């Protein structure tokens, strides 16, 4: 239990997916203009992340690794992710129309979201059992959601600010992301202090 908590805290706060690992930056910058989009995308990312980990992690350790095809992980994972996204979209559309309404349009965008493939690869490299891998994926998704949520707030405030012409648009957004990233640096050392 303690181990799970450590994993969760460290992927959400310290190794935040967007702000310190730089995965999924494109959607972080592109979809944080309003809260509805940001949350829809985040929920979709958490969902796909968990399902895809549940499939790729066993595939790697029970099929690819034993027959020495570990190097095919990139090809296999990206195909699994693409397939998962397609299947999930179909299932959700049929079975849970309200959920589809909320996150359906974001699902296809996820195939090329580097956050998903990145987390799959990190899990293979760094995590040593299935439960922890699932926890780490869930945490990474929550971290993504947290970053999206906070940054949407920052950007809404920025709409009202008087910004110099050449900084308008993306530059000021990136500078704001930099400040948000600094604030996340404050979490360094949390785990050591909490759990010794």
């Amino acid at each position: 239990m303690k181990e799970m908590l450590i994993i969760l805290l460290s992927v959400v706060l310290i190794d935040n997916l967007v702000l310190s690992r730089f995965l999924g930056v494109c959607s972080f910058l592109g979809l944080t203009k309003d809260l509805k989009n940001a949350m829809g995308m985040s929920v979709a990312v958490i969902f796909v992340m968990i399902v895809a980990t549940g499939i790729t992690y066993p595939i790697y350790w029970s099929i690819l690794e034993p027959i020495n095809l570990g190097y095919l992980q990139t090809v296999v994972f990206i195909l699994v992710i693409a397939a998962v996204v397609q299947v999930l979209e179909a299932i959700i559309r049929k079975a849970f129309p309200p959920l589809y309404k909320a996150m359906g349009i974001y699902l296809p965008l996820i195939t090329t979201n580097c956050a998903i493939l990145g987390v799959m690869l990190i899990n293979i490299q760094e995590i040593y059992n299935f439960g922890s891998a699932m926890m780490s994926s869930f945490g990474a998704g929550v971290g993504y959601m947290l970053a999206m949520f906070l940054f949407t707030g920052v950007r809404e405030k920025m709409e009202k600010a008087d910004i110099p012409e050449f900084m308008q648009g993306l530059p000021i957004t990136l500078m704001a992301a930099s400040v948000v990233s600094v604030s996340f640096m404050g979490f360094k050392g949390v785990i050591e202090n909490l759990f010794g």
Partner: protein
Amino acid sequence: MTKKNSLFYEFLKGVLKENPLLILMLGTCPALAVTTSAENGLGMGVAATAVLIMSNVVISLLRKVIPDKVRIPAYITIIASLVTILQFLMQAYVPALNASLGIFIPLITVNCIILGRAEAYANSHGIVHSAIDGLGMGVGFTLALFFIGSIREILGFGTFFGTKMPWITEGGLQPMMIFGLPAGGFAVFGIMVAITQKLNKRFYARQPQAVIGCAECPGCISANTAPVDHASDDLEGQTDEPRVVVPKALREPGILAEPKDVKQSEREETK
């Protein structure tokens, strides 16, 4: 020389007019993550360029074979295979660089530049043009990564390609660690984009034709069943203005001078 459709034009387009990183905003993830040093930036750029050229060539060759409906999965598979090959090459010949780029080498697969160029260019053009387009885009990407990497390495670690800067001394000036951290990455990238926008406005009196975020990356859009409304919110807030036609100055190198009134009014503004 720089006539539209000439090979040189295709090359230059990727470097300047449609620089994938600074103007089209594609491939931001590796641009922020691996640019802690000039060497890493350069290495990442060269690796992505190699994959980009190869994928453009292969997809251009296969463009009449691949059925339209399954083209995105087909492209992704081709790109992922090329990335796997590249990973082997890097493990064998530049193991140190491979280790420091780490996970971002396999992540070239989902780099929007590559799928974007495949979808926007290679599937409708010949092999030679596609290869040159890939080269131009790759060089543009590499240059941008190299600049960001250099700035972050010099300011953040006080070195350049591992050589110590003369002004970093014991008890004297110290490097600013923040530039080596994620926060510095966002900041340096933001400043680079601001400078590019400023230069674009000043020298070419034009705006980037369309700013594409990853959400709008053609690969994602065409894999999409329902078009995403909000993804077309551009990052610049400038879509409402009519698209500015590329001025003659860009197409013909002889006449770089803008109409005088534009320049003068701009100078007055800067004063």
